[in-house]
């Protein structure tokens, strides 16, 4: 079974540019989550999809961040325009059922805004 896949693994962009991160969850997993870890700090929740619907987006920092999950399969997280404080590692996770026991994380996308 393929795991959670994230693209790209690393992205370096200039302040003001746009970046789109992609996450392919494990096939059949209805639940998809985005988390972010800023350098050396705690991992923070961004949002949660159930299929194509946003179940909880309370962790999204501001309206420069847009997440989509068209068709309930892969998800994208777009940052536009990027700011320096957006730098960090963005993790995606998926799970099949309800609850938090079955999270599987991807390897993350390291975003550096210069």
């Amino acid at each position: 079974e393929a795991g959670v896949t994230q693209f790209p693994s690393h992205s370096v962009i200039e302040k003001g540019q746009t970046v789109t991160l992609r996450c392919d969850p494990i096939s059949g997993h209805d639940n998809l989550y985005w988390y972010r870890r800023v350098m050396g700090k705690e991992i923070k929740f961004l949002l949660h999809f159930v299929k194509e619907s946003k179940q909880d987006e309370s962790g999204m920092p501001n309206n420069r961040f847009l997440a989509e999950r068209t068709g309930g399969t892969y998800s994208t997280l777009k940052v536009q325009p990027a700011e320096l404080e957006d730098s960090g590692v963005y993790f995606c996770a998926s799970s099949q059922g309800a609850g938090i026991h079955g999270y599987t994380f991807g390897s993350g996308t390291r975003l550096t805004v210069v």
Partner: protein
Amino acid sequence: DQQVKQNSPSLSVQEGRISILNCDYTNSMFDYFLWYKKYPAEGPTFLISISSIKDKNEDGRFTVFLNKSAKHLSLHIVPSQPGDSAVYFCAANRDSNYQLIWGAGTKLIIKP
């Protein structure tokens, strides 16, 4: 306001000895706690968990202890092995909400 705190950024332990990683939390409504392990360039992987109705959970070399009155939990690894070198995250959950609240992690280094 950080609700889950791991106050030791790093910990160095001799191979074969016990590693003890600590985690404190402030929200008494948390009812489930998890430990994740993370290697460089990889995502966190689930290690062990404990419900608030228990005070201990054991899985092989890994044991998690929960002290609700002190709002403190700890992960014990015995004996420590070189492959245990990683960053360990403590996370908490409330009411089976999907959202996990994480600590900042502790980097464990096992010395040969």
